[in-house]
């Protein structure tokens, strides 16, 4: 493959994925309405576009395969495939085969999946390629008209009542550059005639070293004499013109219509732009809040700075919007997956989608897909009961999974709800105790019990199936969601089903955070995790067994974590009543964070932490604050997980310590379990 094609290849691969997604989507629709003309046409168009693009980048094997797909779709459309269901299934598998082989194709490697499918397609299509329209010879001396559609073109000219003529001509004696002169001649000739073919062909006029002969096949309203006169006017020194005889025309097929007005830009470029905008936002707020400038007391400067601030924020919004894509494509992939999984399990399951137009940061799509795949597999395997059981319990035979997305308080909620049997809390507790997540005598609320399923290794599947139940899964989902600074809410009712809510920010590059102070340190708590903040009164606070600090709020007694203690800040212990408590929720555990002050609620641009800081896993990232200082973003889920495990944070840190700088904790304080106070 040459350099130019290599440069196009990434564009092709991305585009090919779009076509494959559209094929998948349309196939799903077609399955529901097998007679839909519109869906057949859409399939044809997608396969066709894929073929054209593949041929352009010289992936001939793929182009041929796409052609076979077109053939199959066309035959399905015409009702020539006896078992339409099998035909559609074959198309589904073909789409998968292309998807599987694309990475290899892009690197010039072979395409084993496609090769295998191609053989199956050929078998189904009976090897008898589409009977090409029998084309009569145009007759006469025009056998050099060898182009793909030259003959059809001749027929079309005749249908329009035009004459088809052939001219053998010689360029003038003094022609210095024959190919150049030939181009000029053709341009002149085209003013009144349609040029069908030339010999040598146009792409090879360089072969014309002398003056000729150059053969030209044209269509038009004139006679051979008219053509001769015209050629002579164009400077041809000698020519012979003749008319070609007529023959019959060919029949008709197919048409096309859908919408799009986009350009494709490399993700890296957009990321670069968004990064720069992030820096700009910070510098802008540094400049705008600079005391030196405010000291100038210039009304005009103030107005200009205000304008700069507004434009900067608008620019930030615009930059982020560029990275946003609708969830539609991702959702439809899930639809396909549910269909396949349900078949594997012999269950009837429908997936109902809502809010597919909700937009999210493109960089989050992959982790979201991973999380959804796990959750859907779980729902199909463990959630939705086998048909017999559903009928016995008076449920509809067909199980339903709802997947919806909607915006909520600046973020996006992805909701996955099934109407299955719900979580088996007894089993979970049993398993949790077995794995040491629940201690002797510890009593957990329903919510806390449910949250256990996000612990590593905890699977209640009675058997390991092909689909799920390997004991990996939900903790991976939790980590994935956390890595996006999101959190999971889980609710389940025995016999009625389970609902996972993924609360996510719309973007990963910016987080809406609550800026809190602890001594001279600044921390950011993701707003998505914050329930409320309050100044505690004496009667709300108490400690239990001199070990746990607890806060009593709205009838609940919840653990209280002193940030200063958690991070070993060398601060004099403060009276909590002089501090603030930020109530947060992470890992199904509500708790309070004791901080000195809540400074602001602001959007910060997230920077990932370098490896050296990573050991502090209570942080999910860092942000540069508007005063130029760095603030660490708290991982509320990690803190919640630590509380749940009920291990002292000292133990926890020793277990994670990777560097020699881990001194003994200043306070040997333990943080209590998430249980209710007696």
């Amino acid at each position, binding site marked *: 493959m040459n350099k*130019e*094609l290599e*440069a*196009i290849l990434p*564009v*092709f691969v991305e*585009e090919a994925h779009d076509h494959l997604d559209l094929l998948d989507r349309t196939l799903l629709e077609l399955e529901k309405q097998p007679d839909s003309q519109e869906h057949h046409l859409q399939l*044809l*168009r997608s396969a*066709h*576009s894929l*073929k*054209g*693009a593949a*041929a*352009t*980048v*010289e992936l001939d094997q793929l*182009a041929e395969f796409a*052609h076979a797909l*077109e053939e199959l779709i066309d035959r399905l459309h015409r009702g020539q495939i006896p078992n339409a269901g099998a035909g559609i299934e074959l198309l589904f598998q073909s789409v998968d085969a292309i998807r599987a082989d694309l990475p290899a194709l892009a690197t010039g490697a072979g395409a084993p999946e496609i090769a295998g499918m191609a053989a199956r397609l050929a078998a189904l299509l009976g090897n008898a390629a*589409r009977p*090409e*329209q029998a*084309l009569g010879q145009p007759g006469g001396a025009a056998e050099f008209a060898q*182009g*793909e*559609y030259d003959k*059809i*073109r001749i*027929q*079309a*000219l005749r*249908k*329009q009542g035009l004459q088809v003529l052939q001219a053998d001509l010689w360029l003038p004696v003094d022609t210095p550059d024959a190919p150049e002169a030939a*181009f000029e001649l*053709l*341009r002149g000739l*085209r003013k009144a005639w*349609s*040029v069908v073919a030339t010999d040598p*062909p*146009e*792409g*090879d006029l360089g072969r014309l070293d002398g003056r000729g002969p150059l053969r030209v096949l044209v269509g038009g309203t004139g006679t051979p004499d008219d053509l001769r006169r015209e050629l002579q006017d164009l400077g041809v020194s000698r020519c012979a013109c003749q008319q070609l005889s007529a023959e019959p*025309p*060919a*029949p*008709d*097929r*197919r*048409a*096309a*219509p*859908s*919408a*799009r*007005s*986009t350009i*494709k830009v490399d993700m890296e470029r957009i990321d670069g732009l968004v990064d720069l905008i992030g820096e700009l936002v910070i510098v802008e707020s540094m400049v705008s809040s600079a005391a030196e400038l405010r000291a100038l007391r210039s009304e005009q400067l103030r107005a200009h700075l205000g304008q700069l601030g507004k434009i900067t924020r608008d620019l930030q919004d615009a930059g982020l919007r560029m990275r946003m894509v609708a969830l539609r494509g991702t959702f439809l992939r899930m639809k396909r997956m549910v269909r396949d999984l349900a078949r594997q399990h012999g269950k009837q399951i429908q997936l109902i989608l809502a809010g597919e137009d909700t937009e999210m940061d493109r960089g989050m799509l992959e982790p979201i897909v991973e999380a959804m795949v796990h959750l859907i597999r779980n729902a199909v395997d463990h959630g939705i009961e086998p048909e017999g059981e559903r009928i016995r319990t008076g449920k509809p035979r067909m199980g339903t999974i709802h997947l919806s997305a909607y915006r909520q308080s600046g973020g996006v909620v992805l909701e996955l709800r099934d109407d299955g049997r719900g979580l088996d809390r007894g089993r979970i507790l049993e398993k949790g105790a077995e794995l040491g997540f629940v201690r002797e005598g510890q009593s957990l609320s329903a919510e806390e019990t449910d949250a256990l399923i996000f612990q590593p290794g905890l699977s209640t599947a009675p058997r390991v199936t092909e689909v799920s139940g390997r004991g990996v899964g939900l903790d991976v989902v939790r980590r994935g969601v956390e890595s996006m600074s999101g959190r999971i809410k889980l609710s389940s009712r025995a016999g009625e089903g389970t609902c996972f809510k993924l609360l996510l920010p719309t973007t990963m590059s910016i987080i809406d955070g609550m800026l809190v102070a602890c001594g001279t340190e600044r921390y950011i708590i993701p707003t998505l995790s914050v329930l409320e903040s309050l100044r505690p009164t004496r009667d709300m606070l108490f400690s239990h067994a001199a070990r746990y600090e607890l806060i009593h709020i709205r009838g609940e007694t919840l653990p209280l974590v002193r940030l200063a203690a958690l991070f070993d800040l060398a601060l004099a212990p403060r009276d909590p009543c002089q501090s603030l408590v930020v109530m947060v929720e992470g890992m199904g555990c509500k708790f309070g964070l004791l901080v000195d002050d809540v400074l602001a609620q602001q959007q910060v641009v997230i920077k990932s932490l370098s490896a050296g800081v990573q050991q502090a896993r209570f942080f999910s990232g860092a942000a540069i604050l508007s005063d130029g200082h760095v603030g660490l973003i708290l991982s509320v889920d990690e803190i919640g997980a630590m509380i749940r495990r009920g291990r002292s944070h000292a133990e926890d840190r020793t277990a994670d310590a990777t560097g020699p700088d881990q001194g003994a904790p200043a306070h040997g304080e333990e943080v209590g379990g998430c249980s209710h106070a007696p």
Partner: protein
Amino acid sequence: MGRKILLVDDTETVLLFMRMMLSTYGYDMTTAHDGREALAAVQADPPDLILLDIMMPVMDGIECCRRVKADPKTNRIPIVMVTTKGEPALVERAFLAGCNDYLTKPVSKLELLAKVRGFID
């Protein structure tokens, strides 16, 4: 001012390919992704040549060609249909719609350039 070519195709791969192939020859190239976009581009700034794909969403190349050729203000703009192998019926309709010539994908650089030069300087 270079001669203006309007490239119309619903796949970015093909558009990029054609732009790269023609880029060093000083043509002034614009692109459109479907027939309707192409018509709008033709109305806004008539090109000297249109390279037009056939199967496209919204409005296919054949309808686009028919409309360009039906409008006395634009019917002199040459249209070269960019076709794919194995669609004789469609291509015939394109010819009947008045296109001036055709190319077949995959288009080689030489063919593309020759066809363009056979229509414009």
